């Protein structure tokens, strides 16, 4: 009896140790990726979002993005909509905070109204696209639990493959498998699994360029939904870093005078 228990324990110990190791290594990679991107200050970029339906019909949105790095909190960001024309001037302000729900306000130019919106809306589509709000939000380290899976070649590079499980509530995913390359901690690919753990979407990130001789930003992010056959392409243009944005530009009041 006692020997059987001992044998079971002996069999279990390496497994447990290995699991802990995989989690530590996954977290370590996430922290290293986060640390690598710190210190960018602020950036602005233009985003062209092309929605493609199952039959290949396309619609395009033009959005300007401004992001401010906050030293002791999640990033603050502004999305300003230029097209489609009926939403021109609409803007969304987000103050992200790790695990605590983000603060979010929407400016509606027709009513000149700044409306607080409920940031519990994580899994819903952003602007009718295949990107959910949670896919585009600030990816703080503490938002996920991590598990290192393996290393494998990816395109021209070698990648860490890490599984991450959302630590925040209201996520539309059970887990995500992410490919991060070893020579710049750049996100290359993400497989998303829905609430039933079935494959839902794949994000492919490409066209990385380096800014300020350090920070990597992609030109293209393509999200393909395997369940509904739709896809969304984000093309990033005109990245500018350290443009002099300050906290003043990310106040709720600033929504009324964006240009």
């Amino acid at each position: 009896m006692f020997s059987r228990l001992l044998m079971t324990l002996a069999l279990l110990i390496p497994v447990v140790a290995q699991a802990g190791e995989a989690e530590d290594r996954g977290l370590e990679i996430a922290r290293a990726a986060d640390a690598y991107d710190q210190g960018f200050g602020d950036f602005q970029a233009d985003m062209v979002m092309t929605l493609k339906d199952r039959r290949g019909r396309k619609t395009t949105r033009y959005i300007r993005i401004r992001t401010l790095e906050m030293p002791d909190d999640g990033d603050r960001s502004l999305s300003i909509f230029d097209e489609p024309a009926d939403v021109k001037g609409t803007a969304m302000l987000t103050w992200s905070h790790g695990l605590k729900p983000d603060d979010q306000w929407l400016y509606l130019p027709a009513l000149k109204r700044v409306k607080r919106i409920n940031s519990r809306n994580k899994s819903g589509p952003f602007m009718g696209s295949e990107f959910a709000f949670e896919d585009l939000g600030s990816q703080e380290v503490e938002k996920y639990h991590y598990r290192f899976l393996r290393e494998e070649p990816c395109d021209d590079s070698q990648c860490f493959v890490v599984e991450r499980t959302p630590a925040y509530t209201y996520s539309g995913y059970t887990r995500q498998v992410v490919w991060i390359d070893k020579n710049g901690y750049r996100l290359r690919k993400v497989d998303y699994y829905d609430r039933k753990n079935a494959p839902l979407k794949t994000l492919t990130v490409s066209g990385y360029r380096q800014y300020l001789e350090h920070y990597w930003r992609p030109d293209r992010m393509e999200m393909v939904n395997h369940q509904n056959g739709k896809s969304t392409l984000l093309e990033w243009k005109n990245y500018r870093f350290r443009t002099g944005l300050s906290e003043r530009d990310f106040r709720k009041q600033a929504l009324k005078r964006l240009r």
Partner: protein
Amino acid sequence: MRGLLLSSALLAASVSAFAEGLSGNMAVEGRAFTQGSVPPGRVDNEWSLSAQPRWQWVLGRDDELTLELFARIDEGLGRQHGDIRELRWLHVDGDNEWRIGIDSVFWGVTESRHLVDVINSVDRLEGLDGEDKLGQPMIHYSRLTEDGVLEVFLLPGFRAAHYADTDARLTPSIPVRESLARYESSQEDRHVDGALRYSASMGDHDFGVSVFRGTQREPLLQASMLNGQPVLIPFYPLMTQWGLEWQAILGEWTWKIEAIRRIRDDGRFTAATSGFEYTFYDLGASGIDVGWLLEYSSDQRPEAVFDDDWFTGVRLAFNDAQSSEILAGLLYDARRGSQSLRVEASRRLGDSWKLSLEAQSFNHVAAGDPLKTLARDDYIQLELAWYF
């Protein structure tokens, strides 16, 4: 009014050559009333065209000028009008912002009515929900703080309400004589009004406190006789209004309160609207958000319509590529038993068109209800707008 329209259009044409940003929309609208009118002979169907262009000129880093015009042309039913919605200069100096000219502002948090929103007069010819407003001349100073903003308003010039002809619907059946309007202030419509407001966000809470002193934006309609015919004469009293607004997000719940204390010659009145919105986000991973709204309004003012009224509604946001939305709501007067059902829906067509539907029915309007005049004005309205 035609003169204003024409001169606005000319002004617009002459300055548009220098415009850096032109945007706006043009729309065609059809409205059908489903019941015969009381009194008989009012229109059953109407068509109209509207345009709302907006120009923005950036004058360096800290200054900009904007111009927004609005015009509606109809078949001659008195909804034809034009307005300068905005013609203002904005100057930003660090934490100080100045807005000088014609502008409009929005205060408040609730959905079924806008109690504290007191700066602009409502453009009644565009709708009764208080969301279309006449441009108000103002000097508007804002001082930004860490969490909020303190605003000071000086409001010279008053925008009187306009009523459609008695041939039209959704207007009193007795003619309103705007030209005979009376004012409590001896300066009439030249009284300079003023307001102060502080609003801020703290965590999940947004709040605002405000005070306004000046001419009441919505007139009291006084029954009178003119050449042996009954008429309504607008009377604009002076008032002081204290306002309070608060909103908090707690989980899927959004709680809202608006309250006012209005002090006039004929008394001191309190009114409030409060309620919540509860949203099921991404229902069953469909991407669709379903929101449930419930608001209660009380109002001590003698002219009040929402004196003891409930509003409940459902908001559907499909979050699709066409941004399809539906909002359906029921207003119920707990004291008189009157009911009104309202539906608003919209969907984008292609990249630059939008189709909107609006329908309202007035059911069981009780005798003595201020809504009685609308009792047979159930309507359905479709608008096709082109955005540029």
